[in-house]
C-alpha cells in the first residue's frame, strides 16, 4: 500500500545525509560569498536592488551584503542571522563570524564523511570553543586604568577596523574622529547621539567632527541668521491649528460671520500658544512638527529663530546637546528647562545651508559631517564609520583588547591544538578541525591580499610556538610582523562574539538531520 502524501502539495522534506549536505552547502556558499571581503585588502561587492530604480550599493560590510541577499536555503539564513546579530551587538566582525562558521562547517563536513557522528563533532567543538576563549582571556591587554594608553588603544582599534574599509586611506583622520565622538558619549552606547551628516562633494579627507551640533534644516525666512547666547526651547508640539481633542467635537454654524469669528478664535488660540512660547524668554524655537506660516510669521516678528520639522532623533539629540527638555505644553515657563548654546549660525557645507549650534553646554552628542565624491562613497563611509563607532563604544565599556592581524586566531589555534592532543576519543578529531577552521581566517586574509598564504601561515605558526609572541600577518608589507609594534589591535568583545556565535551557529546546523520546507504562501497574482 503506497503511503499517501503526508505533506501539502508544494512542501518537501529532505532527510539524513541529503539534508545535512544541503545545509552544509548552503552555509558554505554564503561564507564563500563574503570571504573575499575579509581583511584590509578585501574586495567590495556591488549590490543591485530589484526595486524600482535598481539602486546600487557598493559595500565591504558583511552584514550589509548578507542582509540584501534573497536566500532560499534555510541553513544559509542561520548565517545571515548571526551576522545581523553580530552587527547589532558589537557592530564589527560581521564578515569574520560568517567565514568562521562556514569554515567550521566545512571541517565538519569532512569529519562527517569520515563517519564521525555530528553529536561527537559538536561535543568537540564545544570543548574547543571553551578552550579558545580561555586562551584569549589569558592574553588580553587591559589599559582601563591608564587613560592615555586607553585612548591610544582605542585609536588603534579604530584604525584596524577602518583599514578594511573604504576609509583606509584616511584611517588616522577617521580614527581620531571616531574616538573623539565616542569619548563624548561618556560610556553610553547610544550611538544615536552621534549624528552623521552626509554631504556629497569634496573628498573624504574633508570630513570633520563638529563639537557642536548641526541640524540639516534651513532657517525660516526673515528670521535672524545668527544668534549669540541662544536660549533654545526644544519642543514637540503641533504648530498648525491645534485640533480640539474632545471626541465628537465639530463646528456647526449658521452664518458666514460665525465662521469668521471661529476662525478668529482659532487664530487667537494659535497666537496665545506662540505668546506662551515666547514667554519662556527664548530666542530660538525648535519644533519636531511643522510650523505653519502664521506662527512662523509671529516668531519672525518677535525676532525668534524658529526651526520646524526637525526629525525625532534630531530633537532628542538637540535635547541631549543643549540640556533642554523636550516640551509639549507651555503653561509654566519658569519650570521648563531651556537649552543653551553660545552661538547659532547658518553655515554652508558644499551647497547646502545647515544650522550650526556651537558652544553647547553638555557635550554628550556631536555631529560628524562626511564629505565624499558620490552617494555610494558616502553610504559606505557611513557604514564603515558606524562599525568603528560601535566597536569603540563597546570597548569603552569592556576595555579588554587583543592584537589583530590573525594573532588571536593563531593563539586560539595553538591552545586548541594542544587540547586536541590531550583529549582521548573521537572528539579530538573535531577539536583539531576547530583549530584548522581558526587558522583559515588568517589564511583568507593573506589570500585576499594576494600573498602566499601557505608560506605566511606556516611562518606564523612557527613564530607562535614561542611563548608570548606577538606575531601576526602584516598585510601591508606582506610579511609576518610584530602586531604590537605595528599597532594593530582588536577589541576582545568582538573576537569573543565572533567565536561564540560562529560555534553556536555551526552547532545548530550540525544538529539538523531533516529539513522540512512548507509550501510557500500563495501571493496575490502580482508577480
Amino acid at each position, binding site marked *: 500500500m503506497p503511503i499517501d502524501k503526508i505533506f501539502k502539495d508544494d512542501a518537501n522534506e529532505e532527510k539524513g545525509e541529503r539534508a545535512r549536505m544541503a545545509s552544509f552547502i548552503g552555509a558554505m556558499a554564503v561564507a564563500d560569498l563574503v570571504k573575499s571581503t575579509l581583511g584590509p585588502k578585501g574586495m567590495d561587492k556591488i549590490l543591485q536592488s530589484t526595486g524600482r530604480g535598481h539602486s546600487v550599493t557598493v559595500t565591504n560590510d558583511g552584514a550589509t551584503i548578507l542582509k540584501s541577499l534573497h536566500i532560499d536555503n534555510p541553513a544559509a539564513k*542561520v548565517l545571515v542571522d548571526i551576522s545581523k546579530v553580530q552587527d547589532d551587538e558589537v557592530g564589527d566582525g560581521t564578515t569574520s563570524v560568517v567565514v568562521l562558521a562556514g569554515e567550521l562547517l566545512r571541517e565538519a563536513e569532512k569529519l562527517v564523511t569520515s563517519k564521525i557522528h555530528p553529536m561527537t563533532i559538536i561535543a568537540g567543538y564545544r570543548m574547543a570553543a571553551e578552550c579558545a576563549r580561555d586562551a584569549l582571556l589569558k592574553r588580553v591587554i587591559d589599559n582601563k586604568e591608564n587613560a592615555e594608553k586607553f585612548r591610544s588603544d582605542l585609536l588603534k582599534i579604530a584604525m584596524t577596523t577602518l583599514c578594511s574599509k573604504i576609509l583606509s586611506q584616511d584611517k588616522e583622520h577617521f580614527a581620531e574622529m571616531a574616538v573623539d565622538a565616542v569619548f563624548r558619549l561618556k560610556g553610553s552606547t547610544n550611538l544615536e547621539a552621534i549624528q552623521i551628516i552626509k554631504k556629497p562633494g569634496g573628498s573624504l579627507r574633508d570630513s570633520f567632527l563638529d563639537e557642536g551640533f548641526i541640524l540639516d534644516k534651513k532657517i525660516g525666512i526673515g528670521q535672524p541668521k545668527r544668534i549669540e547666547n541662544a536660549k533654545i526651547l526644544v519642543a514637540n508640539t503641533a504648530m498648525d491649528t491645534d485640533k480640539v481633542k474632545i471626541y*465628537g467635537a465639530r463646528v456647526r454654524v449658521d452664518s458666514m460671520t460665525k465662521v469668521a469669528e471661529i476662525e478668529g478664535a482659532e487664530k487667537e488660540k494659535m497666537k496665545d500658544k506662540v505668546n506662551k512660547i515666547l514667554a519662556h524668554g527664548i530666542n530660538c524655537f525648535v519644533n519636531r512638527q511643522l510650523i505653519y506660516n502664521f506662527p512662523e510669521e509671529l516668531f519672525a516678528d518677535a525676532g525668534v529663530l524658529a526651526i520646524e520639522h526637525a526629525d525625532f532623533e534630531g530633537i532628542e539629540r538637540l535635547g541631549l546637546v543643549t540640556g533642554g527638555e523636550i516640551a509639549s505644553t507651555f503653561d509654566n515657563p519658569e519650570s521648563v528647562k531651556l537649552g543653551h548654546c553660545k552661538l547659532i549660525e547658518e553655515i554652508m557645507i558644499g551647497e547646502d545651508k545647515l544650522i550650526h549650534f556651537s558652544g553647547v553646554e553638555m557635550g554628550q552628542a556631536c555631529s560628524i559631517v562626511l564629505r565624499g565624491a558620490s552617494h555610494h562613497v558616502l553610504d559606505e563611509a557611513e557604514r564603515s564609520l558606524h562599525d568603528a563607532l560601535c566597536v569603540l563604544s563597546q570597548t569603552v565599556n569592556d576595555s579588554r583588547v587583543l592584537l589583530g592581524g590573525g594573532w588571536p586566531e593563531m593563539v586560539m589555534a595553538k591552545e586548541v591544538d594542544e587540547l586536541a592532543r590531550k583529549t582521548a576519543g573521537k572528539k579530538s578529531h573535531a577539536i583539531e578541525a576547530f583549530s584548522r577552521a581558526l587558522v583559515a581566517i588568517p589564511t583568507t586574509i593573506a589570500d585576499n591580499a594576494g600573498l602566499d598564504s601557505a608560506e605566511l601561515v606556516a611562518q606564523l605558526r612557527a613564530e607562535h610556538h614561542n611563548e608570548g609572541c606577538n606575531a601576526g600577518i602584516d598585510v601591508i608589507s606582506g610579511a609576518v610582523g610584530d602586531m604590537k609594534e605595528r599597532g594593530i589591535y582588536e577589541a576582545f568583545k568582538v573576537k569573543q562574539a565572533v567565536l561564540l556565535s560562529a560555534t553556536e551557529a555551526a552547532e545548530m546546523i550540525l544538529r539538523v538531520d531533516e529539513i522540512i520546507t512548507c509550501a510557500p504562501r500563495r501571493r496575490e497574482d502580482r508577480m
Partner: protein
Amino acid sequence: MALAFDEYGRPFIILREQDQKTRLRGIDAQKANIAAGKAVARILRSSLGPKGMDKMLQGPDGDVTITNDGATILEQMDVDNQIAKLMVELSRSQDYEIGDGTTGVVVMAGALLEQAERQLDRGIHPIRIAEGYEMASRVAVEHLERISQKFEFDVNNYEPLVQTCMTTLSSKIVNRCKRSLAEIAVKAVLAVADLERRDVNLDLIKVEGKVGGNLEDTELIYGILVDKDMSHPQMPKQIEDAHIAILTCPFEPPKPKTKHKVDIDTVEKFETLRKQEQQYFDEMVQKCKDVGATLVICQWGFDDEANHLLMHRNLPAVRWVGGVELELIAIATGGRIVPRFQELTPEKLGKAGMVREKSFGTTKERMLYIEHCANSKAVTIFIRGGNKMMIEETKRSIHDALCVARNLIRNKSIVYGGGAAEIACSLAVDAAADKYPGVEQYAIRAFAEALDSVPMALAENSGLQPIETLSAVKSQQLKENIPFYGIDCNDVGTNDMREQNVFETLIGKQQQILLATQVVKMILKIDDVISNSEY
C-alpha cells in the same frame, strides 16, 4: 458498492465515487492510515533522546525554525494527511497536558501502529487489537505506579527538581548549560508555586528573549521585564522605591461610547471647550500625582502634550504596555489595574523596589526592569542567545523544563528515564499477556514489543547497537528485578539511571502511554476513508 435499491427496485447512489471522491475501505483503509501514522513517527524518531538530532523547518514565509521539540516540529510541518493530523493533535495534547515528552508520545504511537499492522496481517480483527492495547496500557500504567518513587524536596532543597529538569534539557540544543538553565527553571517555578495547594500557575512566569550576548547570560529576574521604554527620552532611567499606577485608561479626554456630537457654534463655546480640554489633561496628571504615584504604566498611548505634562510634573510613564504584561505587573507589584482616573487611590498603587531601564547592544533597544516587587510572585526568565532561532529554541526548552518542574510539584512521583521505565513496563506487560485467554493476548504482546521501541530509538540515536543494548538491559532488569536500568546514552559507563540522575515524571510517562494508546485505538477503528479527490 455505494449503490442501493429503493422499494421499487430502482438503483440510486448513496455515495458518488471515482470522480469527486476517493474512497478507501476495509483493511486497505487501516493499512493506509497506519502507514501515514508511521511516516510521521519516523520523522520524529531521530529527535528522541540526548543525542537526538534537530529538524530544520522552513515556514511558508521563508522563516526558519530549528528545533528538537516534537510538538513544534509537528505543528509547523504543514501536514495534509488526516491521520498525520491526528498525530499532530496527539503531540499537542501531550504538550498542553504535560509539556514534555511530546516526541516520545509520537514515537510510541508509531510503534503501536507498526505492531498493529503485523497483527492485522495475522488476521486479527482491528477491534480486538484495540482492546488488547487498552488492557495492556492499563497494565503498563499500573506498573509505572508501582515502580515509581516519591522523592522529597522543599524550597531549600531543590536539587532533585534540578536533576529532573536537566534530564529534559539534555535533549535540547541548550544542553551546553543545562545546569544553569535547569536551576533557573526550578527557581522560577518555586518562586511562583503555591506549595500548599500544590499548584503552579505558569502564566506568572514570563519568558522573554533578546538576541545578543550568549546563553550563559540568561538570567532569572525576580520581577517583570517589559520590552518598552520610558515615554519621554528625558525621563529618569531609574526609579527607586517606585509607586506604580497601573492604568488601562488613556491620557485622553473621555470618549463616551454612545455616538454624540459636540457642536461649536460660538466663539465662547470654542474657548470653553479649549479650556476644558486643557483641564482634563491637567486633572489626570494631578490625580496620579495626588495618590503618590511615582511611575505610571499605561496600556494606551498618550499624546505629546500629556507626555510632556507628565515629564514636567516629574512623573515617569510607560505607554503601550500589553494587557498580559500589565496583569503580571499588577500581580508582581501588588497593585490594582485601574480603569479610570477617578478610581485611583493610594492603596491601588503597586510597589517595586527598583525600576530601571537597561539598553542593549549598539542599536537603540531598551527594556524596563521592574524588580524587588512587593509581591514577588511573578518572575521573568530573560534569555540571551547568539541568534533568533537559538532564542526561540531556548524558549521552548525552558517551557518544557518549567512544565516538568510544575508536574513534580503537583505530583512528587518520578520514574527513571533513559528508557528504563519503558523496559520495565514492557516486561510487565509481556508477563501479563499470558494471563489473558483471548485473541487479545497477541495484541498485548505486541504492545510490549512496541514499548521497546522507545529505548531502541534512544540507543539508535546514541550510536549504540540497538538490539544488542536493549536485550542486555532487559535481561539485566529481569535478572536483578530492578527497574532502574536504562540505555546509557551519554556513554557514562553505567546503566543505572539512579546513578546517572536521569528522571522523568510519573504523570508524564503515564500520559504518554495513555494518549498514544487512545490515538492508536482511534486510528484502528477507522475502516472507511472518504476524501475529496481534489486535494
